[in-house]
């Protein structure tokens, strides 16, 4: 429980920090790169290394590659739909999380699960 609380506080702080940097930077497209900063990894890898060791972190890093590929497709899909159809940002980005989940699950099945 103290570990989860620590992850919560560090995660909240790291996400907030990167979000503020993204807000400050103009043009918006440059600020946008901070919306895909490795915030969760930064907040948790040190604690994970301490608790589980280097082999575990290596495996997480390899899987994170797949998550990142899924993120590229997801963010591109959100950008395209918003530009093409002028849809609502929250609804579009929330619904298209299935793109991230589908890509991550597909690559997990063909590469990581073996």
């Amino acid at each position, binding site marked *: 429980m103290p570990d989860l609380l620590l992850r919560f506080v560090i995660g*909240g702080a790291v996400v907030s920090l990167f*979000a503020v940097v993204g807000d400050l930077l103009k043009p918006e497209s440059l600020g946008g790169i901070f919306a895909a900063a490795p915030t969760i990894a930064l907040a948790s890898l040190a604690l994970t290394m301490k608790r589980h060791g280097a082999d575990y972190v290596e495996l997480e890093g*390899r899987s994170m590659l797949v998550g990142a590929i899924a*993120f590229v497709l997801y*963010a*591109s899909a959100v950008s395209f739909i918003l530009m093409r159809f002028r849809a609502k940002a929250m609804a579009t980005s929330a619904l298209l999380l299935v793109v991230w989940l589908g890509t991550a699950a597909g690559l997990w099945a063909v590469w990581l699960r073996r």
Partner: protein
Amino acid sequence: MRLKLQLTSLRETTPMEYAKRFLFGGLVTVLASLVAEKWGPIVGGLFLAFPGIFPASISLVEKHKIQREAAESKYGIVAARREASVEAAGASAGAFGLFAFALVVWKAAGNHPLGLVLPLAMSGWLAVACLCWLIREKL
């Protein structure tokens, strides 16, 4: 195109919005670690690149643009969604950087101290994200 720091944009975000970001950020981090605890590092690692707070971030961009346009008595929904789209395109460049970050962690965490690996991975993220952003701007 000029790069700049716009300090006034900090005033557009309300204390409640800052609190929500903190809350979402903390919750997504906890969720990722719970997934790793339950299903192991192979599934858990996927969620280190989960765009958990992205929907909230992008809807804030849209909302703030609508507010700015409304302050000038304009109907700003179309412009706001275009701005959110541009932000998402920037995020796709950032996600390429996320790939570089993960690659460094995967290849280096086993034989180097994390105190070295994380700064190196962050440098990789920033370099690749900025490069992808620059290429996209030139196209």
